[in-house]
């Protein structure tokens, strides 16, 4: 009787694993991407990056101008 109970438990757990594995998908953001929302994220991040690059380029150009001025004054 004890052995039968143990065997049933074993089968039960094995069956559970099989059902779980058959879905076998690790959750990723497929729905999110499917609806096109990922492009919103990319747009926002590119906007921020664009702002940063714009500031850096302006600073760079300003420094070049100042350096040229310094060079001419000397």
């Amino acid at each position: 009787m004890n052995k039968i109970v143990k065997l049933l438990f074993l089968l039960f757990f094995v069956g559970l694993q099989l059902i779980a594995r058959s879905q076998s998908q690790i959750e990723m953001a497929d729905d999110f991407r499917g609806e096109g929302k990922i492009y919103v994220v990319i747009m926002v991040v590119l906007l921020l990056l664009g702002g940063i690059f714009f500031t850096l380029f302006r600073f760079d150009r300003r420094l070049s101008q100042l350096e040229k001025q310094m060079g001419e004054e000397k």
Partner: protein
Amino acid sequence: MKYLMKAYWWKLLTVILLIYTVIGGFLMPAPRLPILNETIRILHFHVPMWFGMIIMFLVSVFYAIKYLSTKNLMYDLYAEQLVNIGVMFGVLGIVSGMIWAKFTWGESWSNDPKQNASAVALLIYFALIILRESLQDDHQKARLGAVYNIFAFAVLIPLLFVLPRMTDSLHPGNGGNPAFGQYDLDSDLRMVFYPAVLGWTFLGFWMATLKIRAARLQKHLDYE
């Protein structure tokens, strides 16, 4: 170096690489890993911070050695600004790592050896910045700063690379975990990861060169 500071081509390259990193990082397929799920994409942002920091510190040590051998204060300026931006990258790396850890390892600071080691590394370089500020004479500041800089880098390398591997760690590649090579870093992630490292490192150098040029102009103004 002077030519590189004013050249524009590598700065445009930086912009292109980083835009590619963002687009590719979000759109390109990522390996499906348990626990990490989509956060594996943070790889392209968190790890390049550390790569960038180490490379900047290495170049800073190079300029520190050059100062000690030539006594030209220009090299000391390069070393100082590279350390400043390197420290900034390190702080960003730690903060982004804490955010990532909160969602994957369960808590922001889990006493992981590599986390602790990176915090200590930043403390060493903060001490360098404090040392520089406490000295007045330019040459003395440069000399002692260079000595401590070289010393700090020599302590940094075993601290960040040797010690975490010797103990249990949650980071991949340390403490018995397989390195990233086993996590599908073969095709999917590598295509975005290597350009990302280049892009972020170049961005760090760009910011450092801007600070160097601004400091030099400031010095010219101070002496007039």
